[in-house]
């Protein structure tokens, strides 16, 4: 295992951890930041996969702007997720 693939393992690990945190955090603001972090790590990976165009676009659009749009939406709605008993699947019910 050389150094480059070692870095890629670390970045994939960090990306998965931030994805899990983004899904599990109750504070939506933190979750939006976690989502932006996922995009940022993904953009590093794009760079390592020899795709600089995609890396730039993902960093500018995926990480910065979509994070900002999420934060504005949170500002206009509510910041904390309220969690009671789990009853998922609203969108498949008739």
């Amino acid at each position, binding site marked *: 295992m050389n150094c480059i693939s070692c870095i890629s393992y670390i970045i994939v690990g960090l990306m998965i951890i931030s994805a899990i945190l983004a899904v599990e955090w109750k504070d939506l603001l933190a979750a939006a930041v976690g989502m932006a972090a996922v995009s940022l790590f993904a953009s590093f990976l794009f760079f390592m996969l020899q*795709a600089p*165009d995609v890396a*730039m*676009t993902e960093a500018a659009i995926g990480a910065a702007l979509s994070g*900002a749009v999420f934060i504005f*939406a949170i500002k*206009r709605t509510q910041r904390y997720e309220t969690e009671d008993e*789990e009853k*998922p699947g609203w969108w498949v019910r008739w």
Partner: protein
Amino acid sequence: MLKRALAIITLLIIGYWLAQGLTGVPFGQDRMLVGQYYLNNVIKQTGSVNAVTAIVVNYRGFDTLGEVTVLFIASTGVGALLWRRKKKRTARTEGSVVLTTGARLLVPFILLFGVYIFIHGHLTPGGGFPGGATIATAFLLLYMAFTQYEIPHGAFEKTEGVAGMSYVLVGLIGLALGGYFLYDWIWQQWHWGINDVGRLFSGGFIPIIYTLIAIKVGTELSGIIDNMLKEEVRE
């Protein structure tokens, strides 16, 4: 808790299934067919050094036209959904000194950087989409720093429409001159910049289209930000 466990089991099954599919597509091997054609001919046929840009704007220009349309729909849709008879910004606290001063200093440079990204799209990584997004970031910074700041909506909407129309018009000129929609008349018919490959003035209509795309993306994304930030006021 039971539902959660059930969901995780379902997801693991889906994941296993996807992994099964992906073993038939091993990582890091050369499987190019059309891609190799692009790489072999890109400089001769489009004058662009950056193969990705050439594909996005020239070979698969139809996709990009659609992509621009998708962003246009999003900005139109956000405008339609958040439309109110009268709306204003409601933020009360001005940004801190660091933010306001920083914004004043940085905005011209961010705009300049955005322009740099999109006009060099055929030479270096980047292009119209990240360039336009960078321009929108400059307006985002202004919005965050100053409570009273607003983009000129009417002008922005019209610019957006004109940029989109010009893109289609460039395609229609290709139809009139070369007989094909989105035909690169500048490179293939007029042979402009044929000796300048790798410099700024080359690449056929790629710089023109990327400029139009960047203007469109920049105005659309700033329009979305503007719509998201303003709330209804009742008199």
